Protein backbone atom coordinates (compact mmCIF):
# COMPACT_ATOMS: atom_id res chain seq x y z
CA UNK A 1 0.00 0.00 0.00
CA UNK A 2 1.21 3.50 -0.81
CA UNK A 3 -0.07 6.55 1.02
CA UNK A 4 0.59 10.09 -0.13
CA UNK A 5 -0.08 12.87 2.32
CA UNK A 6 -0.52 16.54 1.43
CA UNK A 7 1.94 16.58 -1.48
CA UNK A 8 2.77 20.08 -2.66
CA UNK A 9 5.07 21.07 -5.49
CA UNK A 10 5.73 24.37 -7.24
CA UNK A 11 8.11 25.26 -10.06
CA UNK A 12 9.37 28.85 -10.25
CA UNK A 13 6.52 30.00 -8.01
CA UNK A 14 3.85 28.21 -10.07
CA UNK A 15 1.95 25.65 -8.00
CA UNK A 16 1.69 22.33 -9.82
CA UNK A 17 0.48 20.13 -6.95
CA UNK A 18 -1.51 21.67 -4.16
CA UNK A 19 -1.89 19.32 -1.23
CA UNK A 20 -2.66 15.95 -2.81
CA UNK A 21 -3.49 13.08 -0.45
CA UNK A 22 -4.50 9.57 -1.47
CA UNK A 23 -4.09 5.89 -0.70
CA UNK A 24 -3.16 3.32 -3.34
CA UNK A 25 -4.17 -0.18 -2.30
CA UNK A 26 -2.16 -3.36 -2.80
CA UNK A 27 -3.36 -5.74 -5.51
CA UNK A 28 -5.26 -2.97 -7.28
CA UNK A 29 -4.67 -0.91 -10.38
CA UNK A 30 -4.76 2.66 -9.13
CA UNK A 31 -5.14 5.39 -11.72
CA UNK A 32 -4.18 9.04 -11.65
CA UNK A 33 -6.10 10.79 -14.38
CA UNK A 34 -6.50 14.32 -15.62
CA UNK A 35 -5.99 16.55 -18.63
CA UNK A 36 -2.51 17.30 -19.98
CA UNK A 37 -0.42 19.63 -17.82
CA UNK A 38 -2.45 19.04 -14.71
CA UNK A 39 0.38 17.57 -12.65
CA UNK A 40 -0.16 13.79 -13.06
CA UNK A 41 3.40 12.95 -14.09
CA UNK A 42 4.82 15.37 -11.51
CA UNK A 43 2.79 13.59 -8.83
CA UNK A 44 4.07 10.21 -10.02
CA UNK A 45 7.65 11.52 -9.97
CA UNK A 46 7.06 12.90 -6.45
CA UNK A 47 5.84 9.46 -5.35
CA UNK A 48 9.07 7.82 -6.56
CA UNK A 49 11.09 10.89 -5.51
CA UNK A 50 12.50 11.65 -8.93
CA UNK A 51 11.11 15.07 -8.07
CA UNK A 52 11.30 15.95 -4.40
CA UNK A 53 8.02 17.44 -3.12
CA UNK A 54 8.12 20.85 -1.40
CA UNK A 55 5.79 19.55 1.31
CA UNK A 56 4.11 16.32 2.28
CA UNK A 57 5.15 12.70 2.57
CA UNK A 58 4.90 9.42 0.70
CA UNK A 59 4.67 6.18 2.68
CA UNK A 60 5.46 2.76 1.22
CA UNK A 61 3.77 0.24 3.52
CA UNK A 62 4.23 2.66 6.39
CA UNK A 63 7.84 3.59 5.53
CA UNK A 64 8.33 7.34 5.06
CA UNK A 65 10.05 7.55 1.68
CA UNK A 66 10.15 11.32 1.26
CA UNK A 67 12.12 11.95 4.44
CA UNK A 68 14.20 8.77 4.36
CA UNK A 69 18.00 8.84 4.14
CA UNK A 70 19.62 8.24 0.76
CA UNK A 71 20.46 4.65 1.73
CA UNK A 72 16.91 3.95 2.97
CA UNK A 73 15.51 5.42 -0.24
CA UNK A 74 17.71 3.18 -2.36
CA UNK A 75 16.52 0.15 -0.39
CA UNK A 76 12.85 1.06 -1.00
CA UNK A 77 13.55 1.83 -4.64
CA UNK A 78 14.84 -1.68 -5.13
CA UNK A 79 11.25 -2.80 -4.56
CA UNK A 80 9.96 -0.45 -7.27
CA UNK A 81 9.44 -1.15 -10.94
CA UNK A 82 8.58 1.65 -13.32
CA UNK A 83 7.41 1.85 -16.89
CA UNK A 84 8.31 5.19 -18.43
CA UNK A 85 6.37 7.01 -21.12
CA UNK A 86 8.96 6.31 -23.82
CA UNK A 87 10.01 2.95 -22.39
CA UNK A 88 13.40 4.35 -21.25
CA UNK A 89 15.16 1.23 -22.49
CA UNK A 90 18.95 1.40 -22.59
CA UNK A 91 19.84 2.01 -26.24
CA UNK A 92 23.16 0.17 -26.09
CA UNK A 93 21.67 -3.03 -24.65
CA UNK A 94 19.59 -5.75 -26.29
CA UNK A 95 16.07 -6.56 -25.11
CA UNK A 96 17.43 -9.42 -23.02
CA UNK A 97 20.19 -7.28 -21.50
CA UNK A 98 17.67 -4.54 -20.69
CA UNK A 99 15.44 -6.94 -18.78
CA UNK A 100 18.39 -8.63 -17.13
CA UNK A 101 19.93 -5.33 -16.07
CA UNK A 102 18.29 -5.01 -12.60
CA UNK A 103 19.32 -8.59 -11.85
CA UNK A 104 22.92 -7.92 -12.94
CA UNK A 105 23.26 -4.89 -10.72
CA UNK A 106 21.01 -5.65 -7.78
CA UNK A 107 21.22 -9.42 -7.24
CA UNK A 108 23.79 -12.15 -6.88
CA UNK A 109 21.93 -14.63 -9.10
CA UNK A 110 23.92 -16.95 -11.34
CA UNK A 111 23.79 -16.38 -15.11
CA UNK A 112 21.54 -19.45 -15.55
CA UNK A 113 19.09 -18.17 -12.93
CA UNK A 114 19.08 -14.74 -14.54
CA UNK A 115 18.46 -16.14 -18.01
CA UNK A 116 15.61 -18.26 -16.68
CA UNK A 117 14.00 -15.28 -14.95
CA UNK A 118 14.46 -12.99 -17.98
CA UNK A 119 12.92 -15.55 -20.34
CA UNK A 120 10.04 -16.06 -17.91
CA UNK A 121 9.33 -12.32 -17.75
CA UNK A 122 9.64 -11.83 -21.50
CA UNK A 123 7.32 -14.77 -22.02
CA UNK A 124 4.91 -13.30 -19.47
CA UNK A 125 4.63 -10.05 -21.45
CA UNK A 126 4.25 -12.00 -24.70
CA UNK A 127 7.69 -11.35 -26.11
CA UNK A 128 9.39 -14.50 -27.27
CA UNK A 129 12.22 -14.54 -29.81
CA UNK A 130 13.09 -10.88 -29.30
CA UNK A 131 15.94 -11.43 -26.83
CA UNK A 132 18.73 -10.35 -29.15
CA UNK A 133 16.96 -7.41 -30.74
CA UNK A 134 18.03 -3.84 -29.98
CA UNK A 135 15.43 -1.30 -28.73
CA UNK A 136 15.70 0.55 -32.06
CA UNK A 137 14.57 -2.62 -33.87
CA UNK A 138 11.28 -3.12 -32.02
CA UNK A 139 7.92 -1.31 -32.15
CA UNK A 140 6.56 1.15 -29.58
CA UNK A 141 4.21 -1.46 -28.11
CA UNK A 142 7.04 -3.98 -27.81
CA UNK A 143 9.20 -1.36 -26.07
CA UNK A 144 6.44 -0.88 -23.49
CA UNK A 145 6.23 -4.61 -22.94
CA UNK A 146 10.01 -4.85 -22.52
CA UNK A 147 9.69 -1.96 -20.05
CA UNK A 148 7.06 -3.91 -18.10
CA UNK A 149 9.22 -7.04 -18.15
CA UNK A 150 12.15 -5.01 -16.80
CA UNK A 151 9.90 -3.47 -14.13
CA UNK A 152 8.76 -6.84 -12.78
CA UNK A 153 11.94 -8.88 -13.26
CA UNK A 154 13.17 -8.13 -9.74
CA UNK A 155 9.85 -9.17 -8.12
CA UNK A 156 8.86 -5.56 -7.47
CA UNK A 157 6.25 -4.79 -4.83
CA UNK A 158 5.27 -1.52 -6.47
CA UNK A 159 4.70 -0.87 -10.15
CA UNK A 160 4.43 2.63 -11.62
CA UNK A 161 3.40 3.32 -15.18
CA UNK A 162 3.62 6.76 -16.75
CA UNK A 163 1.21 6.98 -19.71
CA UNK A 164 1.68 3.30 -20.60
CA UNK A 165 -0.34 3.51 -23.80
CA UNK A 166 0.69 6.89 -25.16
CA UNK A 167 1.54 6.68 -28.84
CA UNK A 168 0.04 3.21 -29.24
CA UNK A 169 -2.84 2.04 -31.40
CA UNK A 170 -6.12 1.20 -29.58
CA UNK A 171 -5.65 -2.58 -29.77
CA UNK A 172 -2.08 -2.49 -28.46
CA UNK A 173 -3.19 0.01 -25.78
CA UNK A 174 -5.81 -2.41 -24.50
CA UNK A 175 -3.26 -5.23 -24.61
CA UNK A 176 -0.84 -3.20 -22.47
CA UNK A 177 -3.63 -2.21 -20.04
CA UNK A 178 -4.72 -5.83 -19.68
CA UNK A 179 -1.15 -6.89 -19.11
CA UNK A 180 -0.66 -4.32 -16.33
CA UNK A 181 -3.94 -5.35 -14.76
CA UNK A 182 -3.11 -9.07 -14.91
CA UNK A 183 0.38 -8.55 -13.45
CA UNK A 184 -1.05 -6.45 -10.62
CA UNK A 185 -3.49 -9.18 -9.59
CA UNK A 186 -1.19 -12.12 -10.29
CA UNK A 187 1.69 -10.80 -8.16
CA UNK A 188 -0.50 -8.84 -5.71
CA UNK A 189 1.50 -5.63 -6.18
CA UNK A 190 0.55 -1.99 -5.74
CA UNK A 191 0.21 -0.47 -9.18
CA UNK A 192 -0.14 3.24 -9.92
CA UNK A 193 -0.84 4.28 -13.50
CA UNK A 194 -0.88 7.81 -14.87
CA UNK A 195 -3.12 8.13 -17.89
CA UNK A 196 -5.52 10.37 -19.73
CA UNK A 197 -6.85 7.58 -21.88
CA UNK A 198 -10.53 6.89 -21.21
CA UNK A 199 -10.28 3.31 -22.46
CA UNK A 200 -7.71 2.68 -19.73
CA UNK A 201 -9.86 4.43 -17.16
CA UNK A 202 -12.90 2.30 -17.94
CA UNK A 203 -10.92 -0.87 -18.58
CA UNK A 204 -8.55 -1.16 -15.66
CA UNK A 205 -9.28 1.61 -13.16
CA UNK A 206 -10.08 -0.07 -9.86
CA UNK A 207 -9.34 3.09 -7.97
CA UNK A 208 -9.14 6.44 -9.69
CA UNK A 209 -8.07 9.86 -8.55
CA UNK A 210 -8.80 12.82 -10.77
CA UNK A 211 -6.44 15.80 -10.78
CA UNK A 212 -7.31 19.23 -12.08
CA UNK A 213 -5.00 22.23 -11.88
CA UNK A 214 -2.95 20.67 -9.10
CA UNK A 215 -5.90 19.66 -6.95
CA UNK A 216 -7.49 16.27 -6.37
CA UNK A 217 -11.09 16.89 -7.39
CA UNK A 218 -12.47 13.36 -7.26
CA UNK A 219 -11.66 9.84 -6.05
CA UNK A 220 -13.61 6.69 -6.79
CA UNK A 221 -14.08 3.62 -8.98
CA UNK A 222 -14.47 3.39 -12.74
CA UNK A 223 -18.20 2.55 -12.53
CA UNK A 224 -18.78 5.68 -10.44
CA UNK A 225 -16.93 8.05 -12.71
CA UNK A 226 -19.84 8.78 -15.07
CA UNK A 227 -21.94 10.02 -12.17
CA UNK A 228 -19.24 11.90 -10.30
CA UNK A 229 -21.08 15.19 -10.24
CA UNK A 230 -17.79 17.02 -10.78
CA UNK A 231 -18.11 19.36 -13.75
CA UNK A 232 -14.43 19.29 -14.75
CA UNK A 233 -14.37 15.49 -14.55
CA UNK A 234 -17.57 15.26 -16.62
CA UNK A 235 -15.95 17.40 -19.28
CA UNK A 236 -12.88 15.13 -19.22
CA UNK A 237 -14.88 11.88 -19.33
CA UNK A 238 -17.36 13.01 -21.95
CA UNK A 239 -14.87 14.86 -24.11
CA UNK A 240 -15.30 12.59 -27.13
CA UNK A 241 -18.45 12.24 -29.17
CA UNK A 242 -18.92 8.52 -28.52
CA UNK A 243 -19.01 9.11 -24.78
CA UNK A 244 -21.36 12.05 -25.26
CA UNK A 245 -23.76 9.84 -27.23
CA UNK A 246 -23.56 7.15 -24.57
CA UNK A 247 -24.41 9.74 -21.93
CA UNK A 248 -27.52 10.77 -23.87
Amino acid at each position, binding site marked *: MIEIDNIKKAFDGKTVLNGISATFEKGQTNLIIGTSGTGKSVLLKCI*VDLIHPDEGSVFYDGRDFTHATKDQKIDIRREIGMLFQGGALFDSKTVEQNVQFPLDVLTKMTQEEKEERVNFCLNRVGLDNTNTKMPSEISGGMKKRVGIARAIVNNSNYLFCDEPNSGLDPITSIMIDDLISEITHEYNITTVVVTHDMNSVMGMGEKIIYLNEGLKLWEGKSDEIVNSGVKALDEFVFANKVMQQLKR
Partner: protein
Amino acid sequence: MAMIKNLGKYFIFIGSMFVKMERFKTYFRLTIDECMGVGINSIALVAIVSTFMGAVTTIQTAFNLVSPLIPRFVISQVVREMTVLELAPTIIAVVFAGKVGSSIASGLGTMRISEQIDALEVMGINSASYLVLPKIIATLLMYPLLVILAGLLSLIGGYFAGVFSGVISPYEYNYGLQFEFNPFVVKFALIKSIVFAFLVSTISSFKGYYTKGGALEVGIASTKAVTESVIAILLADYLLAFLLLK
Protein backbone atom coordinates in the same frame (compact mmCIF):
# COMPACT_ATOMS: atom_id res chain seq x y z
CA MET B 1 26.47 34.10 -8.60
CA ALA B 2 25.26 31.49 -11.09
CA MET B 3 28.89 30.47 -11.67
CA ILE B 4 29.47 29.86 -7.94
CA LYS B 5 26.20 27.91 -7.73
CA ASN B 6 27.27 25.79 -10.71
CA LEU B 7 30.69 25.20 -9.19
CA GLY B 8 29.08 24.04 -5.96
CA LYS B 9 26.74 21.75 -7.92
CA TYR B 10 29.76 20.36 -9.79
CA PHE B 11 31.54 19.42 -6.56
CA ILE B 12 28.35 17.91 -5.08
CA PHE B 13 27.97 15.92 -8.32
CA ILE B 14 31.50 14.55 -7.96
CA GLY B 15 30.87 13.72 -4.30
CA SER B 16 27.57 11.98 -5.11
CA MET B 17 29.42 9.34 -7.15
CA PHE B 18 30.89 7.87 -3.99
CA VAL B 19 27.57 7.32 -2.18
CA LYS B 20 25.96 3.84 -2.23
CA MET B 21 28.26 2.46 -4.88
CA GLU B 22 27.68 -0.79 -6.74
CA ARG B 23 29.88 -3.87 -6.61
CA PHE B 24 33.53 -3.65 -7.74
CA LYS B 25 32.84 -6.21 -10.48
CA THR B 26 30.21 -3.92 -12.03
CA TYR B 27 32.60 -0.95 -12.16
CA PHE B 28 35.45 -3.08 -13.46
CA ARG B 29 33.42 -4.30 -16.45
CA LEU B 30 32.08 -0.80 -17.19
CA THR B 31 35.54 0.76 -16.88
CA ILE B 32 36.99 -1.72 -19.37
CA ASP B 33 34.17 -0.86 -21.81
CA GLU B 34 34.80 2.84 -21.31
CA CYS B 35 38.55 2.37 -21.82
CA MET B 36 37.71 1.11 -25.28
CA GLY B 37 35.50 4.10 -26.08
CA VAL B 38 37.68 6.74 -24.47
CA GLY B 39 41.15 5.40 -25.21
CA ILE B 40 41.35 2.84 -27.98
CA ASN B 41 38.91 4.70 -30.22
CA SER B 42 40.93 7.90 -29.84
CA ILE B 43 44.26 6.41 -30.89
CA ALA B 44 43.86 7.10 -34.61
CA LEU B 45 42.95 10.76 -34.13
CA VAL B 46 45.69 11.32 -31.55
CA ALA B 47 48.23 9.60 -33.82
CA ILE B 48 47.37 11.75 -36.84
CA VAL B 49 47.29 15.03 -34.89
CA SER B 50 50.51 14.39 -32.97
CA THR B 51 52.53 13.13 -35.96
CA PHE B 52 51.69 16.22 -38.01
CA MET B 53 52.17 18.43 -34.97
CA GLY B 54 55.75 17.13 -34.60
CA ALA B 55 56.43 17.46 -38.30
CA VAL B 56 55.17 21.04 -38.49
CA THR B 57 57.03 22.05 -35.31
CA THR B 58 60.31 20.75 -36.75
CA ILE B 59 59.92 22.59 -40.05
CA GLN B 60 58.82 25.84 -38.38
CA THR B 61 61.62 25.72 -35.81
CA ALA B 62 64.16 25.17 -38.59
CA PHE B 63 62.63 28.07 -40.53
CA ASN B 64 63.09 30.39 -37.55
CA LEU B 65 66.63 29.29 -36.62
CA VAL B 66 68.48 31.11 -39.37
CA SER B 67 71.68 32.01 -37.51
CA PRO B 68 74.69 29.87 -38.51
CA LEU B 69 75.91 30.21 -34.91
CA ILE B 70 73.07 28.03 -33.61
CA PRO B 71 73.80 24.33 -34.07
CA ARG B 72 71.22 22.30 -36.02
CA PHE B 73 70.55 19.88 -33.18
CA VAL B 74 68.80 22.75 -31.34
CA ILE B 75 65.88 22.17 -33.71
CA SER B 76 65.11 18.75 -32.24
CA GLN B 77 65.85 20.01 -28.74
CA VAL B 78 63.19 22.71 -29.22
CA VAL B 79 60.79 20.17 -30.73
CA ARG B 80 61.35 17.85 -27.74
CA GLU B 81 60.71 20.59 -25.17
CA MET B 82 57.63 21.91 -26.97
CA THR B 83 56.22 18.44 -27.51
CA VAL B 84 56.75 17.05 -24.05
CA LEU B 85 55.95 20.21 -22.11
CA GLU B 86 53.04 21.62 -24.05
CA LEU B 87 51.93 20.11 -27.34
CA ALA B 88 51.41 16.48 -26.31
CA PRO B 89 49.55 17.03 -23.02
CA THR B 90 47.75 20.32 -23.75
CA ILE B 91 46.94 20.41 -27.46
CA ILE B 92 45.94 16.76 -27.41
CA ALA B 93 43.75 17.56 -24.38
CA VAL B 94 41.90 20.15 -26.47
CA VAL B 95 41.45 17.59 -29.27
CA PHE B 96 40.44 15.00 -26.66
CA ALA B 97 37.84 17.38 -25.18
CA GLY B 98 36.37 17.81 -28.66
CA LYS B 99 36.14 14.10 -29.33
CA VAL B 100 35.61 12.37 -25.99
CA GLY B 101 34.15 15.28 -24.00
CA SER B 102 31.40 15.95 -26.51
CA SER B 103 30.68 12.23 -26.78
CA ILE B 104 30.37 11.88 -22.98
CA ALA B 105 28.11 14.95 -22.70
CA SER B 106 25.83 14.00 -25.59
CA GLY B 107 25.61 10.37 -24.44
CA LEU B 108 24.60 11.30 -20.91
CA GLY B 109 22.34 14.11 -22.18
CA THR B 110 20.47 11.69 -24.41
CA MET B 111 20.11 9.26 -21.52
CA ARG B 112 18.73 12.09 -19.38
CA ILE B 113 16.11 13.32 -21.86
CA SER B 114 14.98 9.79 -22.72
CA GLU B 115 14.49 9.05 -19.00
CA GLN B 116 17.16 6.32 -18.95
CA ILE B 117 18.88 8.04 -16.01
CA ASP B 118 15.52 8.26 -14.20
CA ALA B 119 15.07 4.54 -14.85
CA LEU B 120 18.39 3.83 -13.14
CA GLU B 121 17.46 6.03 -10.18
CA VAL B 122 14.08 4.33 -9.77
CA MET B 123 15.82 0.95 -9.70
CA GLY B 124 17.81 2.18 -6.69
CA ILE B 125 21.05 2.56 -8.62
CA ASN B 126 23.21 5.61 -8.02
CA SER B 127 23.13 6.79 -11.63
CA ALA B 128 25.97 9.31 -11.25
CA SER B 129 28.21 6.63 -9.81
CA TYR B 130 27.14 3.91 -12.24
CA LEU B 131 27.36 6.01 -15.40
CA VAL B 132 30.02 8.60 -14.68
CA LEU B 133 32.62 7.04 -12.39
CA PRO B 134 33.73 4.41 -14.96
CA LYS B 135 34.12 7.20 -17.54
CA ILE B 136 36.33 9.21 -15.18
CA ILE B 137 38.46 6.21 -14.20
CA ALA B 138 38.80 5.15 -17.85
CA THR B 139 39.83 8.67 -18.87
CA LEU B 140 42.35 8.90 -16.03
CA LEU B 141 43.83 5.59 -17.13
CA MET B 142 43.81 6.14 -20.87
CA TYR B 143 44.63 9.81 -21.35
CA PRO B 144 48.17 9.66 -19.90
CA LEU B 145 48.84 6.72 -22.23
CA LEU B 146 47.54 8.75 -25.16
CA VAL B 147 49.84 11.62 -24.14
CA ILE B 148 52.84 9.27 -24.08
CA LEU B 149 51.84 7.97 -27.52
CA ALA B 150 51.32 11.52 -28.78
CA GLY B 151 54.75 12.58 -27.51
CA LEU B 152 56.48 9.65 -29.17
CA LEU B 153 54.65 10.05 -32.48
CA SER B 154 55.24 13.77 -32.45
CA LEU B 155 58.99 13.23 -32.10
CA ILE B 156 58.91 10.55 -34.82
CA GLY B 157 56.87 12.87 -37.07
CA GLY B 158 59.44 15.60 -36.44
CA TYR B 159 62.28 13.21 -37.29
CA PHE B 160 60.83 12.22 -40.65
CA ALA B 161 59.83 15.77 -41.55
CA GLY B 162 63.26 17.10 -40.60
CA VAL B 163 65.29 14.36 -42.28
CA PHE B 164 63.24 14.14 -45.49
CA SER B 165 63.18 17.90 -45.94
CA GLY B 166 66.92 18.07 -45.29
CA VAL B 167 66.78 20.62 -42.46
CA ILE B 168 68.49 18.26 -40.02
CA SER B 169 70.45 15.03 -40.21
CA PRO B 170 69.32 11.88 -38.34
CA TYR B 171 72.37 12.10 -36.06
CA GLU B 172 71.73 15.76 -35.21
CA TYR B 173 68.07 15.07 -34.54
CA ASN B 174 68.83 12.21 -32.15
CA TYR B 175 71.59 14.19 -30.47
CA GLY B 176 69.26 17.16 -29.94
CA LEU B 177 66.58 14.94 -28.45
CA GLN B 178 69.02 13.75 -25.78
CA PHE B 179 70.91 17.02 -25.23
CA GLU B 180 70.49 18.32 -21.66
CA PHE B 181 67.36 16.28 -21.21
CA ASN B 182 65.59 16.92 -17.90
CA PRO B 183 63.42 13.90 -16.95
CA PHE B 184 61.19 16.13 -14.81
CA VAL B 185 59.48 17.45 -17.95
CA VAL B 186 58.08 13.97 -18.58
CA LYS B 187 56.80 13.80 -15.01
CA PHE B 188 55.32 17.27 -15.46
CA ALA B 189 53.60 16.22 -18.69
CA LEU B 190 52.07 13.18 -16.97
CA ILE B 191 50.85 15.28 -14.03
CA LYS B 192 49.22 17.63 -16.55
CA SER B 193 47.67 14.72 -18.43
CA ILE B 194 46.03 13.38 -15.25
CA VAL B 195 44.66 16.82 -14.32
CA PHE B 196 43.36 17.43 -17.85
CA ALA B 197 41.78 13.97 -18.02
CA PHE B 198 39.94 14.63 -14.77
CA LEU B 199 38.74 18.03 -15.97
CA VAL B 200 37.52 16.82 -19.38
CA SER B 201 35.71 13.77 -18.01
CA THR B 202 34.07 15.47 -15.02
CA ILE B 203 33.05 18.70 -16.79
CA SER B 204 31.63 16.82 -19.78
CA SER B 205 29.79 14.36 -17.52
CA PHE B 206 28.42 17.20 -15.41
CA LYS B 207 27.10 19.04 -18.46
CA GLY B 208 25.54 15.91 -19.94
CA TYR B 209 24.10 14.57 -16.69
CA TYR B 210 22.15 17.74 -15.94
CA THR B 211 20.78 18.28 -19.45
CA LYS B 212 17.16 19.45 -19.43
CA GLY B 213 14.82 19.59 -22.41
CA GLY B 214 15.19 17.84 -25.74
CA ALA B 215 17.56 17.13 -28.62
CA LEU B 216 18.47 20.81 -29.00
CA GLU B 217 19.59 21.01 -25.37
CA VAL B 218 21.70 17.87 -25.80
CA GLY B 219 23.60 19.68 -28.57
CA ILE B 220 23.98 22.77 -26.38
CA ALA B 221 25.24 20.66 -23.46
CA SER B 222 27.76 18.99 -25.74
CA THR B 223 29.04 22.34 -27.02
CA LYS B 224 29.25 23.76 -23.48
CA ALA B 225 31.10 20.66 -22.32
CA VAL B 226 33.81 21.19 -24.94
CA THR B 227 34.04 24.96 -24.41
CA GLU B 228 34.22 24.77 -20.63
CA SER B 229 36.63 21.83 -20.72
CA VAL B 230 38.99 23.77 -22.99
CA ILE B 231 38.85 26.84 -20.74
CA ALA B 232 39.49 24.67 -17.68
CA ILE B 233 42.42 22.97 -19.45
CA LEU B 234 44.05 26.30 -20.28
CA LEU B 235 43.56 27.64 -16.75
CA ALA B 236 44.93 24.45 -15.23
CA ASP B 237 47.83 24.52 -17.68
CA TYR B 238 48.84 27.99 -16.52
CA LEU B 239 48.34 27.09 -12.85
CA LEU B 240 50.43 23.92 -13.10
CA ALA B 241 53.20 25.69 -14.98
CA PHE B 242 53.18 28.41 -12.33
CA LEU B 243 53.27 25.93 -9.47
CA LEU B 244 55.66 23.30 -10.82
CA LEU B 245 58.02 25.12 -13.20
CA LYS B 246 58.61 28.36 -11.32
